[in-house]
């Protein structure tokens, strides 16, 4: 019998332990309780978030697989499907940045090819504390090197991401990773153990002691200094093993030799085996002595719950076994039969008595539980509370203070340069130049643009991808902030002419046992749900990461979304953001004096509080429709989404990209500072050749979008009359050196 101290140390509550006893009709043994503790952990069971996630819209005619499987899958026509997933690897990366990030990449790639899809793109939304801290700089270098080292070597290009700095992440960086795969619809498979007598074949690395009770328990408890002592359980990634696994598994599926393959993730082999059987209501017997071990003298708990990387479980028929083994040998992938499918509905683990289909020798049985029970963890509706000072925070509008400091007539050139020198806004190419972002020859627009654009081989179509999160807005108001994140990702995708088809989310939050955090979570889910419904985007998958905190302080609520859009005809690259001379600069959308949570108010001037910008869902829909139309018809020459730092930064980035200036007049019904640096949502800057100007303005009026011709491009300076006047070369130097300077690296 297990004592209280043991199950509590594994993270199980008294009630949860009692539930296990009830399910089994007896006390669990040590191995059984170890499996339940991992599978019923927050990380694996979603026990605090489940009741809220049900409110997200998840269906559309093109959705083939929604949330709950290894990855979400959508039909994109031409018998092709796209599989997508996003995950967090926050806590492992805080402890060991290189391996934490690397194994995050490895894990998500396995989720994608386990659906039968070839992984073709990775994106990495990254959030760190301020770079004035030496440990943060070490984390940034390590995480980027880990993504680069693993992603490049495994042969999946990293085509985009985010790089955001805010001190709330100082000891708890957010390392999210998004992966997209492509598959012929006919190859779509599910991890299901079908057919009594079929074999469970373990593929890939030998099993070591890494990550035992590690990743899942780590991600399901408060995070503090003592976490560093968990270092020995850090998993180490081997991208070369993974590359061979990808090729072997896809070939197994192509040749119809595997009925399904499943990644070994949390709780390792025990979970993978039980889950595949639970999916069909079958049972599974496993002999742990058949598992290849990397270290001598491992006990059954270690073998069955190890989270060693680069392992998959394939279900194959006995007739196909020889061909499976031969195929794996060709790819130098280790393959061992470790179990077989039964009709018992039970997951049983044996010690050395694995005898094919002979009656099992129950005296050698070391664990015996209902397969489905691992997935039947508790569901909690945790208490929520709106923070007491929330109303006060919303009312603390930074606008009066800022406008008093910078009345019309003030030269804002210095303010613009200060914004461009912040590492969140500055050029992030120091990061993505370390990523292979071109492999497979699909990358039409790589990192650094509004959205990544990939062409789809053998079709005329393309994909547009964007990952975004607006955490500071969420801190002020989680509902609005979550809406704004969805709008920004959808707007970026629309800027390349794409129609959004699916969204995945990675919900990074603090401690769910804090009622304020659960309130933030619930509000953010509602905001996301409203925005997705309004734009007609189904949520096809996601990941929840709670307990992002250190020393008792929760991180800002950080829902990150990835939006996948489809471009029907991609004969040439979409316009891009670069100014070229002699064009009209036209702003689309409405500017209000909205500074709450803006880069200018918070980062440059340290003013906290206020309301986030209004998230008008109708206005967004009109704008996205308009820009899709203008871009598809190629009547605009350049397009850029307006986001952090407002028009000022958007215009500067367009000038830098083209090496061309502009001479513009500010809007007269707004203060100059608001026109420059307000972060009002749903705005885009386009440039238009003179002969197309009236066509664009008419199209905007028809679409109910405010459009204004601000002036023309040309020259070597970016000039907004009476507001700022800076040489494009100075803008470029400041913007390009922001991240390297903050990191203290030579470029």
């Amino acid at each position, binding site marked *: 019998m297990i004592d209280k101290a043991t199950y509590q140390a594994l993270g199980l509550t008294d009630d949860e332990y009692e539930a296990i006893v009830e399910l089994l009709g007896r006390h669990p043994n040590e191995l059984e309780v170890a499996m339940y503790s991992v599978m019923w952990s927050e990380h694996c069971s979603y026990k605090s978030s489940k009741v809220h996630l049900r409110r997200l819209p998840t269906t559309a005619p093109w959705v083939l697989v929604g949330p709950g499987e290894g990855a979400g899958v959508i039909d994109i026509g031409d018998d092709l499907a796209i599989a997508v997933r996003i995950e967090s690897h926050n806590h492992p990366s805080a402890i060991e940045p290189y391996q934490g990030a690397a194994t995050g990449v490895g894990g998500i790639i396995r989720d994608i090819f386990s659906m039968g899809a070839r992984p073709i793109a990775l994106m990495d939304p990254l959030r760190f504390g301020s770079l004035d801290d030496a440990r943060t700089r070490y984390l940034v270098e390590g995480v980027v090197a880990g993504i*680069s*080292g693993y992603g*490049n*070597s495994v*042969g999946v290009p990293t085509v985009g991401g985010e790089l955001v700095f805010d001190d709330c992440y100082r000891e708890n960086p957010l390392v999210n990773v998004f992966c997209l795969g492509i598959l012929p619809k006919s190859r779509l498979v599910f991890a299901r153990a079908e057919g009594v007598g079929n074999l469970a074949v373990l593929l890939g690395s030998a099993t070591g002691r890494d990550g035992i009770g590690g990743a899942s328990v780590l991600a399901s408890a408060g995070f503090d200094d003592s976490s560093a002592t968990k270092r020995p359980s850090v998993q180490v990634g*081997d*991208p*070369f*093993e993974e*590359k*061979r696994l990808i*090729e072997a598994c896809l070939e197994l599926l192509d040749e119809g030799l595997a009925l399904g393959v499943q990644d070994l993730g949390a709780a390792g082999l025990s979970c993978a085996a039980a889950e595949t059987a639970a999916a069909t209501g079958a049972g599974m017997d496993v002999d742990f002595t058949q598992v290849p071990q990397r270290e001598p003298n491992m006990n059954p708990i270690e073998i069955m719950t190890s989270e060693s990387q680069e392992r998959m479980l394939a279900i194959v028929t006995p007739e196909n076994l020889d061909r499976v083994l031969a195929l794996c040998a*060709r*790819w*130098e992938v280790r393959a061992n039969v470790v179990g077989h499918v039964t009709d018992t509905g039970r997951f049983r683990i044996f010690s050395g008595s694995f005898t094919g289909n002979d009656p099992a020798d129950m005296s050698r049985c070391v664990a015996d539980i209902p397969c489905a029970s691992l997935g039947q963890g508790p569901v909690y509706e945790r208490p929520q509370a709106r923070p007491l000072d929330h109303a006060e925070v919303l009312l603390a509008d930074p606008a009066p203070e800022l406008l008093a400091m910078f009345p019309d007539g003030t030269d804002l050139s210095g303010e613009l340069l200060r914004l461009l020198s912040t590492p969140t806004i500055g050029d992030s190419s120091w990061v*993505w*130049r*370390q*990523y*292979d*972002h*071109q*492999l*497979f*020859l699909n*990358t*039409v627009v790589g990192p650094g643009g509004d959205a990544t654009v990939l*062409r789809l*081989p053998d079709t005329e179509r393309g994909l547009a991808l964007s990952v975004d999160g607006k955490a500071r807005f969420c801190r002020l108001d989680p509902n609005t902030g979550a809406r704004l994140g969805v709008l920004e990702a959808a707007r970026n995708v629309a800027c390349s002419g794409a129609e959004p088809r699916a969204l995945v989310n990675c919900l990074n939050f603090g401690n769910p046992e804090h009622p304020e955090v659960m309130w933030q979570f619930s509000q953010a889910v509602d905001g996301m749900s409203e925005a997705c419904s309004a734009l007609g985007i189904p949520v096809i998958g996601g990941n929840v990461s709670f307990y992002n905190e250190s020393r008792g302080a929760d991180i800002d609520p950080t829902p990150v979304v990835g939006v996948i859009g489809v471009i029907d005809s*991609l*004969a*040439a*690259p979409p316009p891009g953001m670069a100014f070229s001379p002699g064009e009209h600069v036209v702003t689309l959308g409405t500017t209000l004096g909205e500074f709450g949570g803006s880069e200018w108010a918070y980062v440059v001037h340290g003013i906290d509080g206020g309301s986030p910008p209004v998230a008008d869902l109708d206005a967004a829909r009109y704008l996205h429709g308009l820009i899709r139309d203008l871009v598809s018809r190629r009547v605009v020459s350049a397009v850029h989404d307006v986001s952090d730092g407002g028009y000022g930064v958007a215009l500067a980035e367009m000038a830098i990209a083209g090496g061309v200036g502009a001479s513009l007049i500010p809007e007269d019904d707004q203060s100059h500072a608001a026109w420059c640096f307000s972060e009002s949502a749903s705005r885009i800057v386009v440039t238009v050749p003179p002969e197309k100007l009236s066509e664009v303005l008419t199209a905007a009026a028809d679409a109910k979008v405010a459009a204004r011709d601000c002036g023309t491009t040309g020259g070597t300076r970016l000039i907004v009359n009476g507001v700022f006047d800076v040489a494009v070369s100075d803008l470029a130097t400041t913007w390009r050196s922001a991240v390297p300077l903050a990191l203290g690296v030579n470029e």
Partner: protein
Amino acid sequence: MARRVAVVVFPGTNCELDVARAISSLGAHTESVFHLEDSLGSAEAVIIPGGFAHGDYLRTGALAQFSPIMESVSAFAAAGGPVLGICNGFQILTETGLLPGALQKNAGLKFLCASVGLSVASNRSVLTRTTTVGDQLQIPINHFEGNYICDRETLAQMKANDQIVLRYTDNPNGSLDDIAGVSNEAGNVVGLMPHPERASAEILGSVDGLVLLESFLAPL
């Protein structure tokens, strides 16, 4: 022109499909040859594409030289057949001894994926024979170990024999003498760090890579 091109695939190779796609766009046919095979069949040209053969463990390209197929590649090269090593393929050819020198970590100690400017330094090689010395090309690089090095005598010899095929116009990795690609003495074996297949379509931003691949396929 060479119609049948063998593309050698090691475990860990990842640019084989890209190379095949670029080569097919020029009207030639590619066949992938797994490293365990011992024959190149009827191939008229051989490409060793980029990637991380054998994980680049021990040293980039070190383990690949012992795969069965490399004996055939060496024999094919000795008989004057055109052999091209791109990136990891270049590293493999230097480890195998088919090309002089070695490639070590970039001077900046970071992986680098970026488009770079190249200048044709010799048009005596199979990769550049249809170009003119001084031609400028824009082609991506994608490597951690692309910093070319060799001893002084080898460099002098290569210069004397006109074996330096391509130079960077703005050295990104610390390569000796800005070297981006070299050939053997006969000019039929060439290795380069940049990826010509990544500059093979207007929609990808450059078609300069096709200039080199066309030359490689042109009749001897």
